[in-house]
């Protein structure tokens, strides 16, 4: 028995203070309502889970995309510069690069590889029956032999141009050009200019030089002899050591065209890729907002479940009050229940979102990346929503008078 006991004077009494619940008991009481109604719990936690999964997978997919671009950049290198003829400052006409520009570039300190391509007036078609105007957006370019090394490109099938094939009607197709022409293997013939060329190789994708992907590449000499190429490069590709990029960039125009350096345009193709990495996050805000809306709807679902739960469980509330629960303990029980409910949804959503990211990234060949901040942020958002959604029903439950709760029908 307890210490409160009347003695003869009836004035003796100890102060009544409600017992404090242990954390484990708070959890037990808070989860009791969930355990009793599993189906409803799964459904209303699902709302939260979908919201969190959306947000985490959106962040994860964009982070994976970014990581993929960065990985690609590392492989391709950021030490390649391209020089091309600009428009003349005086006449506004397209200028040209001097012959042998790539050999001059090789003399710049720090330059490792240099190669040139030159545009020809010829077109490439599948057969001579195809009308001349239907180029399919493809160009025919003369290429020096170092081009593939400079671009760090690879031949998908067949071979690259060499000293012998570079003089004859042989052609190497960029990946896009091969696809548009419907050429899948070396040995086939394509119609260039006014005669058939034999395809000797097809290149892999070249993320740093999309213009080469869309080209039919012919040897320098063959282009001059057979296609009326004037020998002036239209692009000089060069690769230097990483440290020398800035100084090479400054020296390139003067080296290529000492008389009119202002007519030489120098570009860094890796900046385009870097821009792509940055752009990978552009969609994210919109989709993240969508996820937030889903999360909010999930939170409303939890609040709804809790309100109904409080209405249905008035007898339980009355019983607990009769067993000695204070208003605060009833409130705590329902807030705990709501937190558990949304927390379960949040954890399920985080697992789902991470799994979706891994699935997508693996499928797309990207490095799967789920930023830690998105996981912790998602769970924090869940708990905040559980708190908000549970507070109003919990306060209502606590305000319920025990007699009304017990008599409720």
């Amino acid at each position, binding site marked *: 028995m307890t210490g409160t006991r009347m003695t003869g004077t009836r004035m003796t*009494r100890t102060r009544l203070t409600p*017992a404090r619940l242990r954390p484990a008991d708070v959890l037990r009481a808070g989860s009791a309502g969930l*355990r009793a109604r599993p189906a409803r719990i799964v459904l209303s936690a699902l709302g939260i889970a979908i919201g969190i999964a959306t947000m985490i997978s959106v962040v994860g997919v964009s982070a994976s995309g970014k990581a993929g671009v960065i990985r690609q950049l590392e492989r391709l290198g950021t030490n390649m510069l391209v020089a091309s003829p600009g428009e003349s400052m005086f006449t506004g006409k397209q200028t040209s690069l001097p012959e042998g520009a790539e050999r001059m570039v090789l003399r710049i300190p720090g330059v490792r590889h240099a190669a040139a391509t030159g545009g020809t007036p010829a077109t490439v078609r599948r057969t001579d029956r195809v009308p001349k105007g239907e180029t399919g957006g493809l160009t025919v370019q003369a290429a020096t032999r170092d081009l593939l090394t400079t671009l760090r490109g690879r031949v998908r099938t067949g071979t690259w141009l060499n000293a012998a094939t570079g003089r004859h009607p042989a052609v190497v197709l960029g990946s896009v050009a091969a696809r548009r022409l419907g050429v899948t293997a070396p040995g086939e013939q394509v119609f260039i200019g006014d005669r058939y060329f034999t395809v000797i190789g097809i290149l892999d994708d070249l993320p740093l030089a999309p213009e080469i992907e869309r080209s039919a590449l012919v040897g320098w000499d063959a282009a001059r002899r057979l296609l009326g190429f004037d020998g002036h490069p239209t692009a000089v590709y060069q690769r230097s050591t990483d440290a020398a990029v800035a100084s090479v960039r400054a020296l390139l125009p003067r080296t290529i065209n000492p008389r009119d350096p202002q007519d030489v345009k120098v570009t860094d193709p890796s900046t385009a890729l870097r821009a792509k990495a940055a752009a990978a996050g552009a969609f994210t805000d919109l989709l993240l907002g969508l996820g937030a809306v889903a999360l909010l709807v999930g939170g409303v679902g939890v609040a709804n479940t809790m309100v109904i739960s409080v209405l249905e469980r008035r007898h339980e509330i*009355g019983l607990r009050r009769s067993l000695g629960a204070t208003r605060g303990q009833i409130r705590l029980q329902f807030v705990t229940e709501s937190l558990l409910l949304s927390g379960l949804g949040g954890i399920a959503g985080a697992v789902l979102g991470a799994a979706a990211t891994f699935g997508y990234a693996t499928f797309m060949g990207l490095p799967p990346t789920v930023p830690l901040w998105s996981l912790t942020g998602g769970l924090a958002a869940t708990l905040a929503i559980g708190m908000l959604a549970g507070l109003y029903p919990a306060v209502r439950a606590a305000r319920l008078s025990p007699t009304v709760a017990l008599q409720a029908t």
Partner: protein
Amino acid sequence: MNVVELSGVRKEYPGGVVALAGVDLTVRRGELVGIVGPSGSGKSTLLHIVGSLDRPTRGTVRIAGHDVAGLTDRELAALRARHIGFVFQSFHLAPGLTALDNVADGLLYRGTPLRERRRRAAAALERVGLAERLTHRPHELSGGQRQRVAIARAVAGDPDLLLADEPTGALDTASGGAVLELLRDLNAEGTTIAVITHDHEIAAALPRRVRVRDGRVVADEAAVR
């Protein structure tokens, strides 16, 4: 020594309904008293006031020595946790919990640790004759067994007062009789019990009967034994 002392207790509900119109009632430790009256007589209100679930509009209420008027809501909760056990007509058991955990939860708000709660719950279930049914859930038990689980929950903490509100109301005659028998046994072991009922037959089996009508005590009679 008095467990319950009511003097001049009046309870009005908003709208002018007078549920209790001046009730004096004393229950001594160790008594088994029936509070009898038809529906609308005010006996439910009396139960709520004696159980400290509600406060009177006027008059003084002392439960286990505590003047209810001077207590805050929190203190009333603590009073119920330590001194009063309730048994309801509809049992109010948690459907998902075993008999043992249902009884153990009766001690939750006393701050008793789980292990001790379960130990005392097992002892209480043994007292009501359900030692073999510890792991059964309410739907696996008969009505009479469910009410005995509810009684075990009410007595697990050795309350100063056990309040039973129509404890046999939802039971057939045989199980009702068994429940009444159990209450008498518990009383014989020292528990103070007040049974609220409209059933004169049940009341007749109790040693003291307080008859309530129109919010007043109209008779307070002890059985001649």
